[in-house]
């Protein structure tokens, strides 16, 4: 059974006012003790605690910069925690950005193996899903052409098909619904719902409140890195929308 326990999580970012500190500046600062700090620190996440149990479908809402994506990235281990801890039981697959690690010089087929290995699939697994991915992306004719010759739609279809080819225990989604023509969108939606259905836990960030209401049974509302509310979608989203007026 999958679960996610987040305890007193804080993540601190440094915002640099100028460029990255140069070698010269660092040397200057060694001798010049009363240095002016060239960055300010902000807490993207501050003292966040929650528990997600198996079967939960969690939506995260909040303004831009509320820390939603930062939280997802922390769950997927991209960001190091400044304080607190996260313990995850189960295999997480992030669908944060599709086509991360695609190489435009590579053919579609080569990218399946490159991107697939980055997503954590083994070679044998990839061999097994390769025909299905190509078929779903409708790229049979072009799969051995470099993806730099692909149209945006073709590229998106391949990235989407590959990213959704495996069923993870814990699914993490950040505002993604595939592009492409209407027919593909419909097909992709079915596939995505199927993926969500089979996932043990689903966590998504979305500004589409209808979608969150439709897919989630629980909503977290974040503001300035802090948890404002945690409850049923109808209740939390209503309060969130009311606060914006």
């Amino acid at each position, binding site marked *: 059974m999958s679960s996610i326990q987040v305890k007193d999580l804080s993540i601190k970012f440094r915002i640099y006012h100028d460029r990255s500190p140069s*070698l010269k500046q660092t040397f200057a600062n060694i001798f010049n003790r009363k240095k002016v700090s060239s960055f300010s620190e902000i807490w993207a996440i501050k003292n966040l605690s929650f528990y997600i149990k198996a079967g939960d479908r969690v939506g995260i809402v909040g303004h831009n910069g509320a820390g939603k994506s930062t939280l997802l990235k922390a769950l*997927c281990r*991209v960001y190091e925690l400044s304080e607190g801890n996260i313990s995850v039981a189960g295999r997480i697959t992030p669908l944060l950005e599709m086509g991360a690690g695609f*190489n435009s010089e*590579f053919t579609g087929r080569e990218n399946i193996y490159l991107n697939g290995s980055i997503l954590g699939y083994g070679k044998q697994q990839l061999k097994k899903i390769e025909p299905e991915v190509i078929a779903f992306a409708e790229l049979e004719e072009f799969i051995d052409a470099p993806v730099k010759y692909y149209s945006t739609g073709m590229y998106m279809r391949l990235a989407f098909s590959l990213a959704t080819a495996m069923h993870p225990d814990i699914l993490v989604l950040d505002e993604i619904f595939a592009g492409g023509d209407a027919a593909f969108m419909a097909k992709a939606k079915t596939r995505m719902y199927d993926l969500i259905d089979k996932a043990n836990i689903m966590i998504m960030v979305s500004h589409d409140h209808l979608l969150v209401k439709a897919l989630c049974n629980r909503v977290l509302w974040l503001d300035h890195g802090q948890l404002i509310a945690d409850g049923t979608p109808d209740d939390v989203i209503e309060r969130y929308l009311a606060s914006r007026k």
Partner: protein
Amino acid sequence: MMSARFVSFLSELYGSRSVLQQLIAQQLILRYRRTLLGYLWTLINPLLMITAMALVFSSLFKADLKTFVIFLLTGMIPWNFFSSVVTQCSTAFISNEGLIKKIYLPKVIFPLSVAFVFLIDSLLALAALLILIPLVGGSLSWSLLFLPVSFVLLFLFSMGLGLIMAIVTVYFRDLQYVIMIVTQGLFYLTPILYKSDALTGKVTWLVKLNPVTPFIALFRVPTIDGTVPGITILVWAASIAVATMAAGLFVFLRHEKNIVFRL
């Protein structure tokens, strides 16, 4: 604390070996895609350059061309590996920023894949050298079996320095250009074009202190002299290699989790 980190570092590295493989393949495939001679360029390029250098310097030093070519090659193979790994590792994290910010991967695979690519290049160059030696009238001796040890030590040394460069360059972007200049200068302070004992004058002690010098000997002695390197050189090189690798791992393990905020 540090040793626990090291253990999890190794197990993660093992877990992501297929990504490592893919990254290496990516670099190898892309380099010569759509070229006629393809991977042969890896050999043609340095061989032509070394031939040109040999022509110039053998006449300059009034040395026999054939023996000078072999002499030069045995110095250039370890040098090229060392300088390529150190300079290319420095941008390993920066050029993979997009990936590092989007998905979790053990970060060591980026510099490591760079090092493996150059290791493959060097092994090919070595194969070419072994073919060349009998052609110019030299002989192959059993001492060549020592070369794997030379490669291991050279790899540890270069990779250790590469790890440090990769991390530090994230914080100080100027370093990637400084390294290029420094390695170019270091080339002349390393006994590649000349024999280390043929040197007289003020810079002799600099060449002796140069940490790359013993690694050149590790390649040159087995190939040219036909003997196993002496124990002093071996111990000296091994100490430098292990110390550099340890320093590299230390710096890397301390900072690997912070670089994502600075990319």
